[in-house]
């Protein structure tokens, strides 16, 4: 290990860059209120979920406002914290707060400890900011749902858990938040649990996430065995001393966890089903925040990944496969939410790719995570607004020409659209361009895949726009598309503005420099082409995708029923590239066979063997018959006999 002092911060030198050591200072001043960021929405959740017994009527009337207020309060506090952090010098931008000892056994000492640094600061703003907007939107969206109070309770629970995830100073605390958001996701996907499909989707999401949690749990165990702690600060100081095999194992185990939470291949199958949840949930949890937790995990664990090149390579491979996988799914889906979900998977692939590229990529992973949080939340809420006007129909083949009927929804959605395809100047343009550039500098094949993904993004998003807002109206009699109420359109306008302007974060390399105390300073890598050439190339590729969509979808009428005589590729994409079929064939069906086999074995085999065996050995069958005849009714008597026997035997030994 080679400790040097770089720009005032202690850094751990390694190949390809330098990873700073986590060394938080005391939480004084406004930072002493750090815990309150979590406590506010948590208190909201407790009141909304448990308060029903005491004041159901009153809470049903004001509960949604209470839920929104707690998150808005957290947002205000997050802004105050952020401003204070900016006011500090770079090396003092890490603050730790010890709340209490969670559990301590032997050498394992786990604190409820919080860590506030530039990385968590940006997440706090995203979670509480976008979260508050989506709470406002939900007030109107869920207005006619009799269980709206409970919905807001779950949303608050989610926000609190997500804040724990990004504020925790050790991996066990992170795991608490990690599972907390998983629970909230489960509850919200299955919110309309009277639908079988919703209940099944909720279970599927939780179970697949738990497969990922195997990785996270074992990583925690391996960390403790290796470092004797799970604190970020302590591990980051000594990670360089651990063996290469250990570090790569840690990297791969953490990646397994990240794959589950962030729907990366091969644990991607739950995300499209998760669209069973109410649309604000899809926007907040399954687009803007929770599904990006895997990216957070990788970036946060940079002190491991920077020293684990093999694990980093696997991250890049998984991310590249996923970004294409999700994009292909997005091309074939007629369900507007599922098309957007495929897109989310693909965009998280971009973030994960950047995170896998190491120090040069970390800030751009987070930058894209933020801009994606804006434009994807914007488009999901827009999709919700469309559904609101279309009697909850999600099939884009039943839309068409909606731009006239929902002007605000259309215009705001268009901002998100331009942002995600990377239209020059819009937020997504800056963030995706940086990732493609970094990828090309690292590896040509990966870079080209990222470029190809951008083209496909242009295709499927244009297809979605055309089918929804343009062309002939295809809805049936009795549907009256209309613009949504103000409470829904105002968050759309705000998010649209952020989708347009999100790129300002890159002004003067702000986001890169701001994150440097966490992610380190990258060595300069020369890309194979001049950056401006890469940018032009990317725009051209996107233009081809957009053009292709117009050629295939925009020129002709969209049939109301999906055509069945389609190519193999389309069929495969419609079937989620056979993700479910593979899971079914490889895991679910053999698993069920195993379970049923074991149940039979348990009844016939084990029981029979134990009873038969003991009967043969001990002649118990005779006793059994007598007991069943009711002869030895009083077990007390036989116990007495047994005790007498003991005493006699002992006396015999004693006297002998």
């Amino acid at each position: 290990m080679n400790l040097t002092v770089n720009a005032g911060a202690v850094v751990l030198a390694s190949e390809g860059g330098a990873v700073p050591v986590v060394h938080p200072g005391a939480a004084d001043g406004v930072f002493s209120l750090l815990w309150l960021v979590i406590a506010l929405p948590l208190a909201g959740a407790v009141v909304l979920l448990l308060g029903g017994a005491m004041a159901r009527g009153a809470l049903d009337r004001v509960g949604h406002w209470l839920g929104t207020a707690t998150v808005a309060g957290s947002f205000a506090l997050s802004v105050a914290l952020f401003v204070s952090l900016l006011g500090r010098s770079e090396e003092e931008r890490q603050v730790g707060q010890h709340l209490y000892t969670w559990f301590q056994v032997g050498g394992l000492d786990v604190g409820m400890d919080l860590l506030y640094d530039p990385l968590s600061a940006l997440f706090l703003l995203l979670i509480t900011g976008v979260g508050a907007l989506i709470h406002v939107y939900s007030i109107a969206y869920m207005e006619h749902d009799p269980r709206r109070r409970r919905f807001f309770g779950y949303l608050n629970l989610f926000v609190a858990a997500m804040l724990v995830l990004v504020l925790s100073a050790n991996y066990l605390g992170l795991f608490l938040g990690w599972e907390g958001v998983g629970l909230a996701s489960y509850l919200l996907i299955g919110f309309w649990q009277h639908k079988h499909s919703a209940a099944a989707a909720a279970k599927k999401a939780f179970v697949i996430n738990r497969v990922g949690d195997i990785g996270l749990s074992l990583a925690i165990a391996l960390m403790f065995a290796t470092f004797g702690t799970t604190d970020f600060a302590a591990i980051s100081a000594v990670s360089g001393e651990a063996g290469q095999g250990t570090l790569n194992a840690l990297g791969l185990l953490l990646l397994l966890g990240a794959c589950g939470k962030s729907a990366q291949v091969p644990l991607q199958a739950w995300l499209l089903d998760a669209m069973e949840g109410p649309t604000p949930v899809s926007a907040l949890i399954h687009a803007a925040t929770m599904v990006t937790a895997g990216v957070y995990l990788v970036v946060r664990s940079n002190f491991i990944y920077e020293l684990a090149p093999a694990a980093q390579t696997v991250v890049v491979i998984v991310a590249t496969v996923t970004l294409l996988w999700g994009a292909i799914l997005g091309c074939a889906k007629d369900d507007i939410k599922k098309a957007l979900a495929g897109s989310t998977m693909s965009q998280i692939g971009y973030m994960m790719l950047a995170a896998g590229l190491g120090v040069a990529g970390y800030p751009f992973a987070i930058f894209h995570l933020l801009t994606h949080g804006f434009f994807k939340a914007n488009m999901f809420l827009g999709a919700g607004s469309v559904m609101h006007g279309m009697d909850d129909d999600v099939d884009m083949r039943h839309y068409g020409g909606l731009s006239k009927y929902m002007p605000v929804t259309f215009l705001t959605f268009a901002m998100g659209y331009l942002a995600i395809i990377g239209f020059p100047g819009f937020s997504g343009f800056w963030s995706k361009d940086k990732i493609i550039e970094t990828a090309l500098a690292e590896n040509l094949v990966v870079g080209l895949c990222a470029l190809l993904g951008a083209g496909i993004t242009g295709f499927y998003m244009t297809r979605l726009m055309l089918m929804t807002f343009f062309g002939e109206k295809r809805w049936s009699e009795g549907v009256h598309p209309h613009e949504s109420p103000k409470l829904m359109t105002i968050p759309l306008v705000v998010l649209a503005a952020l989708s347009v302007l999100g790129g300002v974060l890159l002004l003067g390399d702000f986001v890169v420099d701001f994150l440097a105390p966490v992610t380190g300073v990258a060595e300069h890598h020369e890309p194979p082409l001049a950056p401006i050439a890469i940018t032009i190339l990317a725009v051209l590729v996107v233009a081809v995708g957009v053009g292709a969509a117009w050629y295939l979808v925009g020129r002709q009428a969209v049939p109301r029923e999906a055509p069945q005589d389609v190519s193999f590729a389309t069929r495969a994409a419609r079937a989620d590239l056979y993700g479910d079929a593979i899971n079914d064939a490889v895991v679910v069906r053999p698993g069920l066979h195993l379970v049923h086999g074991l149940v039979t074995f348990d009844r016939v085999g084990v029981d029979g063997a134990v009873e038969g065996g003991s009967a043969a050995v001990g002649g118990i069958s005779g006793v059994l018959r007598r007991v069943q005849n009711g002869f030895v009714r009083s077990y007390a008597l036989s116990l007495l006999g047994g005790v007498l026997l003991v005493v006699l035997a002992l006396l015999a030994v004693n006297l002998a």
Partner: protein
Amino acid sequence: MSDLPVLTILIALPLVGALVTAFLPGATARLVGVGVSGVALVWAVLAALTSYTVDGGMQLTETHTWIEALGVHYALGVDGLGLVMVLLTTLLVPIVLVASWHEADAPGNGGSRAFVAWVLALEAMSLAVFTATDVFLFYVVFEATLIPAYFLIGGFGREGRGGAAVKFLIYQLAGGLVMLASVIGFYVVSADAGRPSFLISDLAALDIDPVTQRWLFLGFFIAFAIKAPLFPVHTWLADTTEHATTGTSVLLVCVLDKIGTFGMLRFCLGLLPDASQWATPAVVVLALISIVYGALVAIGQDDVLRLIGLTSLSHFGFIVLGIFVLNTQGGSGAVLYMVNHGVATAALFLVAGYLVQRRGTASIRAMGGGIEKGAPVLAGIFLISGLAACGLPGLSTFVSEMLVLIAAFQHAWWAGAVAVTAIVLAAIYVLWLYQRTMTGPEQVDVRDLDRREVGTLAPLVLALVLFGFVPMPLLDAINPYVEDTLAEVGVTDEAPTVPAADDTGDHATDEAADGAASSQGGHE
């Protein structure tokens, strides 16, 4: 309080209560039963708060010679292990009595009077088991628990309970007989050493040769493996929980079965340390099989009460695994697991019992779903209890399960890797159960939990959440016991390969520093 025979009074309270209620009319018996068990709970909590210090060692001890020639004593005492088991027992009994309020009087059941009397008798015997510090006394009360248990299974519950009670009894008897051989063996060993004694403190001081240790170990371990239960001697468990009332199941699975793991700690590790180390590989494998096998078989069950019984096979696998990997995280995790499993499984059994009463069947398929909307409290508590069974962070079971996982991984990475699969399997059996029984199109005829029912579940759910976030009060009692026991066994924790400097040390406790220091002797 210190001059009083605190533990004798604690045991005598429910014992006298049992004798009194046996002669009272059912309605009065119920009230008296709840009152007596409530007083026992208060007594136990007061004793824990005022007369117990968490430094370790046996406390509140009482020793009287019982049979001098044989070295048999009436000797009681509690350490961290005994204390938490006493608290768990005294907490669950009044809850079970209130939860079973009308059940025992249902047609075909034995009536409230008998039910209350047997439950109190079982409480008294269980408390005696957890506080006995004489092996002979332990054996007597260990066997004595079978009497009330047998009558509770055979006299109350569903059709087929008679057969289940007999099966239960045969298994337990067989275990008891094997243990008896080892009890006699202890006598022989101590008599050979000079003065016969059954006191645990005397026996621990003996230097028993390794071969004898192994024989003695086998006797105890087989008995405790049947009790706990462990694969492959577990089949009595699901038959019992399927047919008994859920109140009885709570007492059996959450209290009585803990005697198995309690005994492994107290007698196998405590008195036969060399043999315990010798047996570790085999026991670890059995525990791992139980964890995975129990969870898989639970997934395939159609009877909800059978399913819950089998989840306990998986959980007992975790407890045994934690005990036998022989490190502090495993030991403390296992003891904490015993408490948490007791609370979580009690909640799950009780709420499942309320569900079965409402639907008139325990078959998941026959029940159909659609309850969540009409009975949100029932569904909510069912879900929380179920999530506790799968170790969700934020609930107390997570802390103990994670401790055992970490400990198993330290022992051998493959042990951790096998055990960790349970977190997926548990999610499947719990959430699939929830999906099939609670969700789906609404069924209007299900009423939600009433106040009495919520009252029985609320303390359990509260404990799950409270100890999920603040488990240290329990661990403060458990840790010294585990450290003492492992010192007795003669093992130290492995040191981390790349120890991190403790620069966040402002909250490091003295124990942590000690643990780190004492572990320096381990491998590099």
